[in-house]
């Protein structure tokens, strides 16, 4: 009898869950637009929830929030998570019909992934307290990261892309300068080409002064950045939008050259470089007495490297655009866009918050806090560039900005690249075989996705 009841209950629950789950196709109507009061005085107290990535940039903003709340009556609950967790949380908490957040920070690569759930920028209500963000205020190379299929879905909020760091104390050391010139026949300085990077890095590495290079091999998205950086510098794109569809356009020979050169850089990198993520890179560059001669940085992290309380190289870093490869120069972008989920019931308050954040006044103060907003006039303001050496470097990097491929299935492609890139650079697989495997498996993913 008991077993019959159990079977009955299982069948009943199975049927219930099937019924509930199968109804997922039904779309509910979008919430009606809020009515707009005319006066620009603080409105009734309201609260919005915001999901952001955890780094010094949003933290610097957090200190300014009381001013926004005082002006608008809108309280902002900010939740900051590590970038992979932002993706996870967004995927679960934002749906077509409901959302836990009124504003979400979206890594540029994931804008296509969530495109169908985001309110197009054109539909965002006009601000009552702050003017709607002018797209032209955003640095042009950064602007496109908030768009998908020609629709603006989010406002790029940080100017995050590869900026190069070189140890100023090393390249200005008279003894090293003399020894280097004697050996290589040219001046020690900020590496402008890959060959210079290799020469100088090898000089410091073989003399036991510092490691020559700091690679970035942490996580699938990070590995794809490095791969795109090398391939673009060696003159080949990975995936391109051709004839209305995505195609793998990787030139095998140039891609192999890129990996082979990266292997040379790996040889002058700190031990354990094969899995260096941000935490290890920062420890190696900023906390190891020996340190690293030269490597890229996401500008969003510069504040941590320039903090004398936590960094041994604060004030000793020279910034520049990345060195040029044999056939090109590339600064990979890794910016974030602020977007409003279509299901948000506080779109006007959410938009107000974004307009405030992207305003000139806030951007200027964020620059002074050693962070990098995407607003062009703040990044190029002479009043700041004199005291913030990273800003001219950032502007130079933006001239050669290169984006990672963006489409919904990018997560699968990242895994493929990560798997074979690591095998290639560690010698676990011949580099040509690794490239062929990347091309083959990426093509399979694209075909399956219908591109």
């Amino acid at each position: 009898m008991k077993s019959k009841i159990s079977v009955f209950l299982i069948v009943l629950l199975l049927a219930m869950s099937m019924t509930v789950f199968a109804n997922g196709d039904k779309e509910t109507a979008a919430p009606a637009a809020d009515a707009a009061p005319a006066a620009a005085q603080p409105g009734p107290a309201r609260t919005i929830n915001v999901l952001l990535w955890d780094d010094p940039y949003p933290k610097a903003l957090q200190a300014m929030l009381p001013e926004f709340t005082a002006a608008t009556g809108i309280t902002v609950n900010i939740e900051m998570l590590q970038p992979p967790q932002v993706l996870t949380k967004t995927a679960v908490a934002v749906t077509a019909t409901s959302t836990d957040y009124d504003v979400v920070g979206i890594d540029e690569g994931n804008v296509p992934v969530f495109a169908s759930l985001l309110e197009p920028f054109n539909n965002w209500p006009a601000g009552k307290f702050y003017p709607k963000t002018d797209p032209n205020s955003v640095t042009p190379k950064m602007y496109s990261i908030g768009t998908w299929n020609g629709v603006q879905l989010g406002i790029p909020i940080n100017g995050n892309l590869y900026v190069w760091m070189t140890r100023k104390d090393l390249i200005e050391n008279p003894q090293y300068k003399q020894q280097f010139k004697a050996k290589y026949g040219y001046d020690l300085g900020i590496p402008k080409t890959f060959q210079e990077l290799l020469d100088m890095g090898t000089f410091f590495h073989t003399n036991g002064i510092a490691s020559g290079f700091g690679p970035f091999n942490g996580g699938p998205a990070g590995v794809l950045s490095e791969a795109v950086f090398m391939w673009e510098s060696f003159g080949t794109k990975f995936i391109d939008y051709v004839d209305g569809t995505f195609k793998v356009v990787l030139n095998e020979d140039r891609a192999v050259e890129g990996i082979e050169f990266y292997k040379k850089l790996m040889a002058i990198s700190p031990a354990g470089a094969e899995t260096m993520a941000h935490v290890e890179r920062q420890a190696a560059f900023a906390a190891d007495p020996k340190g690293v001669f030269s490597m890229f940085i996401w500008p969003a992290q510069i504040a941590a490297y320039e903090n004398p309380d936590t960094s041994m190289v604060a004030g000793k870093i020279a910034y520049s655009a990345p060195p040029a490869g044999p056939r090109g120069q590339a600064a990979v972008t890794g910016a974030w866009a602020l977007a409003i989920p279509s299901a948000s019931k506080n779109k006007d308050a959410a938009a107000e918050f974004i307009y405030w954040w992207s305003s000139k006044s806030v951007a200027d103060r964020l620059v002074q806090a050693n962070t990098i907003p995407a607003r062009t006039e703040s990044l190029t303001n002479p009043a700041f560039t004199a005291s913030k050496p990273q800003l001219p470097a950032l502007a130079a990097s933006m001239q050669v900005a290169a984006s990672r491929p963006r489409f919904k299935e990018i997560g699968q492609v990242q895994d493929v690249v990560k798997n074979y890139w690591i095998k290639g650079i560690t010698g676990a697989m011949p580099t040509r075989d690794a490239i062929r495997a990347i091309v083959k498996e990426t093509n399979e993913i694209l075909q399956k996705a219908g591109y």
Partner: protein
Amino acid sequence: MKSSRRQATKPSGVVALQRAGGRGSPVPFLLPALLIVFAVLIFPILFSFVVSLFDWPLSAGGGERSFVGLGNYSELFRDPGFWNSLLLQLGFIFIAIPLELVLGLGAALLLNREFRGGRVIRALMLLPVFFLPVVSGMTWRFMLQPRYGALNNLLVNIGLPEITWLANAGTAYAAIIMQDIWRMWPFVFMLLYAGLAGIPTELLEAAEIDGANFSKRLFKIILPLLYPTILTALLLRIIDALRIFSEVYVMTEGGPGMATTLFSLYTHRIAFGHMKVGLSSAMAIFLLIISIVFAITLVRKNMSLEQLEERGGGQ
């Protein structure tokens, strides 16, 4: 004894009701509890199974999903990443758990006596079990770093070369196993120590008087009597090890490459990297089936031991 036990269990609720003077079926009394059990324990599993029958791209925000039947399972079995993660997972279990058992048993035998400070030592040995898995993973990640990692410092100080533990596929896999052994062998020790304490000392003393040396006492008395406890420890550890996630995620994120992408890490990646919830649910159901197979095998083994004991007792 056997018959009295049967009488007490066979008609169960009916007998109890009749003894209490009640009539009718016990089902109405059981129903609320059963409903709660089904809602809390069974429904999530069934829901997961139902999800596994759908193609549900999470990026669509829960709106778009289509019934694909067993399509996700078919896709899973054609995915080399799935087999890679399964192989890594099983390897992890078959390497880590036997070592934990050996260490746990050794320590339990060693400490199964009273001596000055014994209680403190036994308590201290349990500390790693109480470590948060995330903290354990992070601690090991830093300990294994070249240059500033404690383990490499030790190696260098005794004249050995540095090892880039987490940068090499083989050593990274070994490192996550080491971490698990470090954290969980005291748990096995705790169970086996309790089991050892339950073995009648008269038996061991009698064997000793009869001239049985330690090896004989171990293999003829201690291990046979400890066998049910060992099986229980094995079952608990296997179920726990099948679900291992956070330590490995923090230590290696599944790398280098896919070298430490265990089953649960791959399931997570499929769900939140590839945004395929249906496929990841199929993986979860597959993991559940593996767990059930392990559980049934070990529980049956344990029950057959009890039956043997009962028969022995009746004779």
